[in-house]
């Protein structure tokens, strides 16, 4: 019962504190009255009785305080009082408060946003069962730089059947198809994936409707089945649950819908619209091949410690497979990496860079607020000294000042957190290709982080000025205040120190932003190797059900080209499997029959493309040697290839490649193909090095490999205006056939550079903001110094100092921390540059251009910020300055 009673008293003390205080006075009064009455009854006159009673009772004021100090919640009362004082002081200087709060809001808001994204994308485990045990397995060619190579289906099959180190292994590959309109829907080309039957079980994914694949469906010749993702289920089938068990047509073939994946499932990325079983996605002869690489393998570890051993076992098996397939491109080793790393791979460095930039900005914001508070501390110096003289404890004074910065941070933080909601949203929408973007949301962790940041900022911003403003000897403060000629030198030193830090961090940010921006510009202007103005590209894929013969495929390709050429406004048209900048597409290994066999481990490898005779002239890719394809290079007469310049220099150094051969298997059997021409290099992806490329005639017309094509159209005017006319030509030939990726060359470049442009712009924005903060800080410090030194300047002028000298005096004073900060920042920037090396393109971490440009822009800003107070200083009238004393 005692605790119940205590809780009652606690509540009383918390909520009825005012009443309790007046009641205590009532108690005292009653007591005194009783005593007075007693005294009177003993014969005293009322005045004496009262005095005597008071004497026996003691000092009521003191007793009241003593009693109060026995009460609970006194700490709360102290905080409350500090908060009231703090709010009052802040309200008295609204300009300062608003500036500080806005600065904090920006810093905290940006940091919270970035943290939300980093938490969801990088830190949160994948939404699968026991995700820590999921790893990806890759083939590793000893001769290749890139360590992670996609896996051949035959390898996967052997790994799964013959090793026992993993609980299970599953594979998937990219796929795609044309969804026909069943009930009046538009035909639609959709990206898809083909997953082995155990993939969903291995990941621990339960379908939202229906079931997942069975082993029997995952074999050549099985009946076609499909699982829909939630997005497709909703967008195309309106969330109609009856779709399960029904048939839909993909590439004109019937597929039975057996299930729908849950809403949250967006692996490998949200562009995948449906899943089919793994094995039927191959041609029968491909399904067991070891030298055709395209699959990704997910494996589940038995235990976290077993990874090394399990991978070793698979790797040993792979080496045996490699030996059995001498001369074919079969990797020697197997490597693994955690699945989460695989998923976030591309986003990791930019995210960390952004997070670091935002952290820098927050630190600058804190230093700035700290700086502003130091200035206020200087103004309140006398007040603090007097309070100390009257016995105010230092701790109490510090507490009071920190309360102010806590208030600023809380106000700024609240604003910042609200800001961060929309900021997060904006970043996620703008940042294409951000993995796991759909999982990004704010939650308790984010809130806790934001609150922690708010208090960290409060302490950081408040503690330095509070300690400094109370540390000064009491006497000297009071003495100081009488004459301020040399006053508060130490406080100015502290402010300059804070400023140096601020400027250093700003320079680091500026340099990083400069490097990133330069990379982005390099990337954007990098030479694709073809004309990029006025070019329209459009993709289509001919379903192999109708287009089952080479003649049919060829007829469509040629028919379309003929119609497009005839359109007014078309300068040239061509067909290619993938246009420059449009992606890697694929590569093939080969040997050169004219060259004596080299060591067994040397694999010759080149990117492959299919093109029609007109493609190169349409995109103005120069012919360097030999000839282009002709209309004779068609159907079975297609043992000809064209190679790129890089191919020629890499594999035929000092030789004429024309007339030589490459031996490669485009489909299933090795062929000797004659080199008839050499063309200029093109980039498969912006920012990637040039790779040796080999072109085959698309007029071969093979229904499996030549059915996907991009029609490229060089136009006289706006290329997008041609999109509809060209599309109409496709429908005229086949109304069921959808086109997709209708893009101009400029759009392809824009898409490829979007994420670089985005992170570069963000970091640049942070840097500019920091630069402004630093300028405000510098301006504040100098203005303060000029005010402090006005009488000194007045004396100097009275003694004959010239205005120019005064100007120089103040400028030098202001620029000293700037130069110090610059030196510190330049060295920090060099380190930062090294750290972000991997995301730089066409520039070095120590790019002198960037360093000079950023140093100059900082110095200019600093100069502008210092000139105003310096000019004010030299306009000081000596008489007035001296009179002010």
């Amino acid at each position: 019962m005692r605790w119940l009673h205590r809780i009652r008293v606690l509540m009383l003390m918390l909520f009825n504190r005012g009443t309790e205080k007046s009641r205590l006075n009532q108690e005292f009064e009653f007591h005194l009255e009783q005593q007075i009455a007693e005294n009177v009854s003993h014969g005293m006159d009322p005045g004496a009785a009262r005095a005597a009673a008071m004497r026996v009772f003691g000092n009521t004021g003191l007793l009241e305080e003593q009693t109060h100090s026995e009460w609970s919640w006194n700490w709360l009362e102290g905080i409350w009082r500090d908060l009231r004082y703090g709010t009052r002081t802040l309200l008295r200087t609204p300009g300062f408060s608003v500036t500080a709060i806005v600065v904090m809001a920006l810093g905290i808001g940006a940091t919270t946003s970035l943290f939300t994204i980093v938490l969801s994308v990088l830190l949160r485990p994948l939404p699968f069962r026991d995700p820590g045990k999921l790893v990806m397995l890759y083939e590793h060619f000893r001769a290749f730089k890139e360590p992670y190579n996609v896996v051949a289906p035959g390898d996967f099959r052997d790994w799964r059947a013959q090793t026992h180190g993993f609980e299970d292994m599953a594979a998937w590959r990219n796929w795609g198809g044309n969804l026909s309109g069943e009930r009046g829907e538009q035909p639609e080309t959709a990206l898809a994936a083909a997953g082995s039957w155990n993939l969903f079980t291995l990941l621990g994914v339960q379908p939202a409707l229906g079931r997942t694949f069975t082993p029997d469906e995952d074999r050549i010749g099985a009946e076609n089945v499909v699982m829909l993702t939630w997005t497709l289920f909703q967008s195309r089938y309106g969330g109609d649950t009856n779709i399960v068990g029904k048939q839909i047509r993909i590439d004109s073939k019937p597929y039975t819908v057996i299930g729908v994946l849950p809403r949250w499932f967006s692996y490998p990325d949200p562009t995948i619209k449906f899943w089919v079983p793994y094995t039927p996605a191959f041609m029968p002869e491909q399904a067991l091949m070891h030298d055709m690489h395209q699959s990704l393998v997910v494996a589940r570890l038995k235990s976290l410690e077993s990874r090394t051993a399990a991978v070793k076992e698979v790797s040993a098996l792979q080496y045996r497979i490699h030996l059995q397939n001498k001369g074919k491109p079969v990797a020697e080793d197997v490597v693994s990496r955690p699945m989460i790393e695989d998923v976030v791979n591309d986003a990791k460095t930019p995210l960390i860079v952004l997070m670091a930039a935002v952290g820098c900005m927050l630190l600058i914001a804190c230093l700035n607020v700290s700086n502003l508070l130091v200035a206020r501390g200087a103004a309140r110096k006398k007040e603090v000294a007097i309070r100390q003289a009257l016995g105010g404890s230092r701790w109490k004074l510090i507490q009071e000042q920190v309360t102010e910065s806590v208030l600023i941070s809380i106000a700024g933080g609240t604003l910042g957190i609200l800001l961060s909601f929309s900021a997060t949203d904006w970043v996620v929408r703008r940042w294409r290709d951000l993995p796991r973007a759909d999982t990004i949301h704010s939650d308790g962790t984010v809130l806790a982080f934001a609150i922690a940041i708010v208090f960290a900022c409060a302490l950081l911003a408040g503690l330095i000025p509070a300690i400094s403003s109370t540390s000064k000897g009491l006497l000297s403060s009071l003495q100081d205040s009488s004459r301020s000629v040399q006053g508060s030198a130490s406080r100015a030193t502290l402010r300059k120190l804070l400023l140096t830090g601020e400027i250093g961090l700003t320079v680091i940010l500026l340099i990083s932003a400069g490097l990133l921006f330069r990379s982005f510009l390099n990337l954007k202007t990098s030479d694709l190797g073809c004309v990029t103005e006025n070019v329209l590209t459009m993709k289509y894929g001919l379903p192999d059900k109708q287009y089952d013969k080479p003649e049919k495929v060829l007829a469509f390709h040629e028919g379309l080209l003929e119609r497009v050429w005839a359109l007014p406004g078309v300068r040239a048209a061509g067909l290619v499997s993938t246009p420059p900048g449009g992606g890697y597409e694929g590569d093939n290994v080969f040997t050169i029959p004219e060259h004596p066999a080299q060591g067994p481990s040397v694999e010759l490898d080149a990117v492959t493309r299919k093109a029609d005779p007109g493609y190169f002239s349409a995109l103005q890719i120069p012919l360097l040697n030999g000839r282009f394809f002709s209309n004779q290079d068609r159907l079975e007469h297609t043992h000809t290839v064209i190679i790129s310049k890089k191919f020629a220099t890499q594999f035929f150094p000092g030789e004429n490649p024309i007339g030589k051969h490459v031996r490669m298997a485009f489909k299933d059997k090795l062929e000797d193909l004659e080199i008839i021409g050499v063309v200029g290099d093109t980039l498969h992806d912006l920012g990637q090095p040039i790779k040796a490329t080999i072109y085959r005639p698309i007029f071969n017309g093979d229904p499996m490999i030549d059915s996907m094509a991009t029609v490229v159209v060089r136009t006289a005017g706006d290329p997008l205006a041609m999109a509809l006319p060209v599309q109409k030509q496709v429908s005229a030939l086949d109304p069921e056939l959808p086109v997709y990726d209708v893009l101009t060359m400029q759009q392809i470049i824009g898409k490829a550079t979007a994420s670089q442009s985005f992170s570069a712009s963000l970091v640049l924005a942070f840097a500019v903001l920091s630069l402004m903060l630093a300028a405000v800080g510098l301006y504040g410090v100098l203005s303060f110094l000029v005010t402090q030194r006005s009488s000194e300047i007045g004396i100097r002028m009275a003694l004959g100092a010239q205005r120019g000298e005064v100007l120089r005096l103040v400028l030098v004073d202001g620029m000293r921390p700037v130069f110090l900060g610059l030196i510190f920042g330049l060295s920090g920037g060099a380190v930062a540059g090294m750290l972000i090396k991997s995301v730089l393109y066409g520039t070095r971490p120590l790019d002198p251009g960037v360093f000079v440009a950023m140093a100059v822009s900082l110095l200019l800003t600093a100069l502008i910020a210092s000139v105003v107070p310096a000019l004010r200083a030299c306009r000081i009238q000596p008489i007035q300055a001296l009179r002010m004393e």
Partner: protein
Amino acid sequence: MGKPNDLVQGTLDLLILKTLSLEPKHGWAIAKRIEQTSNEVLQVQQGSLYPALHRLEQQGWIRGKWSESETGRQVKFYSLTSAGRARLEKEMESWKRLSAAIDLVVDAL
């Protein structure tokens, strides 16, 4: 003679608890009672009762209740809680032990 500070630490608590063990009282009555029963030897500085009373109340040993006095005024009456009664027993015991020990030392010399 005796100001409360001169009393052995914690003795005032014991005196208050003991005084309240018979019946609820208000502050003035407690002071009077202590003076009377100690034959005016222990003259508590009356005001210093209140911090002690409030401390004891915060700790849950006694309970304060506002009710009407004989003269019809609102007065705070303090009474012992059951926890306070147990506390009193303990305090008494330790006081007896202490005073007995002091007696022993004083008598021995």
